[in-house]
Structure formats: C-alpha cells, structure tokens
C-alpha cells in the first residue's frame, strides 16, 4: 500500500495533505486554462483504476465536512460503483450524501450529467478513463501536446467526416469531442453526446480527473462548450420514439430495459433520481388526463369568446 498508511495521523478523505495541495494547485491551473489537461502526480487509491480513481482523487481534494455528495454511475445512484464510492467518502470524509441532484454540493459522475439543470455553486466531478481526445489519432503524448499547442485539430475533423462518408451521419455517440472556450479540444469523458449541450454555459464548475493517465482538466461555470460538427452536418443529440415508461419524460436520456426473453422491453430514464422525483411529483395518470381534457376545453372556450 502507499506510504500514507504508515502515517500516524488520520488522513481526512483518505489523501494525505501534500497530495491534496498538489492536486489543488493543478485544479486551479485547470480552471484558469479551460479544457487544457494539467498533468499531476496521482496517488494510488484503494480501488482499481476502472473504478474512477481520478474522479475519486479530485473529489477527495475538494470535499469538506460541510459538503453533500452525490455519486452516480450511468445516471444511477444505486450501482455497485456509485455505492462503493459514496460509502468510501462517508467513511473517510464524514460527509452527508444524497441522491437528490439539487441537494448535492459535489456530484461525482461516471457516464452521465444529471438531467436536472445544475446550479451556481455546485461542482460536478467526472471520472475519466482516457483524457486525451486525440489519442486514437496519435499515440505519442509528445505529439498530442504539440497538436494542442498549435491548435492542430484538423485530423479530429477528418475523423468525424469519415463517419459521415461511411454512415451518412456522425456515428460517434459517446465521448463526442468538444471545443472549450474556442480553444482546446476536450474529451467530455464517456458521457453520451446527449449530455454535451449541458456542458455549455453550465452554471456549475465541471472538474475532470483521469487516474491512470494522471490528468486533470476543467470547465469553469458559464463557459462556451461546442460539440465539433460541420455546417452541412450539424451536431445532433440522440432522441427516442418512446417516452420514459415510468415517468413519461419526453426529453431525458433513456435506457432500454429487457423485460423477458420474449423480446419485450421498455425504455426508462437513465437518471434514476430525475425519474423518481418525476414519479413522486406527478399526479396519477387518470387525474392528469382529466386535467388535460379540462384545459383543452378551456382553451377552446377562450378561443370562442374572442
């Protein structure tokens, strides 16, 4: 294990203070240079890399006892990964946790941005497996660094355009590259492109941590985030023919759930808190139906009275 475990003092949020200071300095640079990947000397965390050690280190570095933490994985608070990370911070940082997006001050996420609009003062921490958007085009770090320095992003556009010539549209649906504040091309982590527009001009601070590659990057609040596209092939988000089978939402990201081996399936919100609160708040379908009929009649009446 790491040298930290031999220290006599108890490390709040697991990390030792020197590591936190180093990550804090990197975070401040990341905020000052939106979309640029700041290298940092990451520490081993007591969990495998696939579990989001980069995000965990960032959360451990920013979090304090007055914070309320929410952890999601694929939109859900209840997956093993999300539960483990939440318990890790309950144990090591003595913080309150929540499943409600609006009650959280810090939200750690893998693969989704909550459907509920994030607000001023909230911090969204992303777990990032591969921080370099140009990596699949150029394996050498020295070269990708140069490409970012020179804003040499032509190859990235070529890659997206190959999608178009092959599929008739841009087929990239996850980790869809964005340009931050008109300067750095950035990997939004493996979130669906559906979530890209939520990054743009977001009131919350967005922090990204990659544990294996030891990179930190950030999007400050109210920052322009554009998904790369072409004039004749503008960026589009996924859409579904169905509404959510549980809450009826027409505009949230849906997951397909297989119901039985006869091929029956349904579509439900990937964001479990969003779906649940809509179900809690909505009236029973029959009442809703009656009300909507009533309002239709009213509008007919008001038309007639004009």
């Amino acid at each position, binding site marked *: 294990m790491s040298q930290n475990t031999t220290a006599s003092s108890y490390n*709040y949020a697991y990390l030792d*203070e*020197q590591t*936190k*200071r*180093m990550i*804090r*300095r*990197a*975070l*401040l*640079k*990341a*905020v*000052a*240079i*939106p979309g*640029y990947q*700041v*290298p940092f000397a990451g520490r081993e965390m007591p969990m495998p890399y696939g579990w989001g050690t980069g995000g965990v280190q960032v959360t451990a*570095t*920013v*979090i*304090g*006892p007055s914070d309320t933490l929410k952890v999601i994985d694929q939109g859900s608070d209840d997956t093993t990964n999300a539960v483990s990370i939440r318990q890790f911070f309950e144990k090591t940082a003595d913080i309150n946790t929540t499943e409600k997006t609006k009650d959280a001050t810090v939200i750690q996420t893998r693969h989704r941005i909550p459907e509920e609009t994030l607000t001023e003062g909230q911090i969204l921490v992303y777990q990032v497996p591969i921080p370099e958007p140009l990596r699949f085009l150029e394996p050498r770090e020295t070269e990708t*660094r*140069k490409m*970012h*320095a*020179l804003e040499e992003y032509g190859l990235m556009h070529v890659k997206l355009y190959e999608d178009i010539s092959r599929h008739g549209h841009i087929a990239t649906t996850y980790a869809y590259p964005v340009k931050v*504040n008109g*300067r*750095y091309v950035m990997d939004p982590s493996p979130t669906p492109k559906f979530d890209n527009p939520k990054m743009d001009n977001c*009131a919350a*601070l967005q922090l990204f941590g990659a544990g294996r590659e030891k990179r930190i990057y950030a*999007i*400050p*609040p*109210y*920052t*322009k985030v554009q998904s790369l596209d072409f004039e004749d092939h503008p960026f589009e988000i996924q859409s579904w023919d169905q509404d959510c089978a549980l809450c009826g939402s027409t505009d949230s990201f849906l997951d397909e759930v297989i119901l039985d081996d006869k091929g029956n399936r349904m579509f439900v919100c990937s964001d479990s808190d969003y779906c649940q609160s809509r179900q809690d708040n909505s009236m029973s379908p029959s009442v809703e139906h009656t009300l909507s009929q009533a309002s239709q009649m009213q509008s007919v009446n008001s038309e007639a009275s004009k």
Partner: protein
Amino acid sequence: MNSQTNSLSTQDIGQTTLPGFDNPVFDATTIFRTVLDAMSHPGTVIETPLTCKSPSKLNSSAASVLLALADMDTTVWLSPETECSNVSDYLRFHTGCSLTQNAKHCDFAVLNGMEGPDQIADLPIGTAENPDRSATLIIAVDHFNSEKKAVLSGPGIKTTSELSPSPLNSKLWGWMKDNRNYFPCGIDVIFASPTHICALPRSSEMDI
C-alpha cells in the same frame, strides 16, 4: 512541539512564533475552496472565511492562501516590498516552501499592489505545450472599492464582472490586460485584501 525533533527551532527562524491555521486540514480545504470559487468566478469578491495572524507585510488573506497551497514542493518569490525575514520565516516555518530571489523560478509570487509591473516581468508564464508551468501571483491590496474599474468577461463570468482592487499601481492595469495576450500561457492573479479575495485568471478578457 519539541525543538529537538523539529529541524526548524525557534532560534533558527528568528522571532516568528505566529501560529498558522488553527486546524491545518480543514482550514486548508476551506481556503482552497474559496480560491477555487474565486478562480471560477473572475472578478467576484469573496470573503476570506477565516483569518490568521500574519506578518505585517503579508495580510491575513494572502497568508492563508499560501498556507493552503504552498509546501516543500513549491518555490515562493517575494517582491522587494513584501520581502523581509518575518515573511520568509513565517512561510518557511508553516509551509516548508523554498524562497527564491529569482522570479523566473517560482510557483507563487507575492506583490504589493503599489509596486509596478517591472518587478514581475520575469515570472514564468508557462510554455505553449505546458502552459500550467506558470506562476500564480498574489497581489496584496487594501480593498476592492477602487474608483478605477476593469470590466471582465470570459469563462466563469455569466455576462460581465468588475475588477476594482485598491490601491493598485496604475501600470499594473496595462500589465493585466497584456497578460491575456499570452493565453494559454500567462499568470493567474489572486488579489488579497485583509478580509477578501478576488481572482483574475489568465482566461479573462479585460476592458479598462
């Protein structure tokens, strides 16, 4: 603390017996979050959530920022106005940082708002490939009610915000405006009054 087990005895560090943070772990987190908030909202003046007893040439907010972020891995440069044994002993004792006379090789720089930009001309601004290898400049001021104001826009700012640190050497305004031209290289500035902080990251556009 027993001076025999501490490499820096009271004698070594002169008369510095000023305490650091009451609670090093939580106070550092609190101050970091304040700086993060300031850096994420350029121009917004934020109350420093705690005070510390600091040497006279380093106000409480400036001292708390350094206590939270400096350590044995960082080098601090003090301007002619802020450089004195009280300040350097205080920082060395509480953070373990190195102090340098050479502004070219520092992570943090401390300037008094009355000093001119000549003093900070040598601060590292990073390179095109590694723009993060730059100095963070802490400028000590008295308050944020200057009659002269700059209008800021850019990342972290919803529409515009105002920057009005005071007193400030008039030549520093031009220096700050120029700083934006080096983006993504550049210096990130943290203005510190005794009770508040306000940040100007290199990403902010400035109209004077």
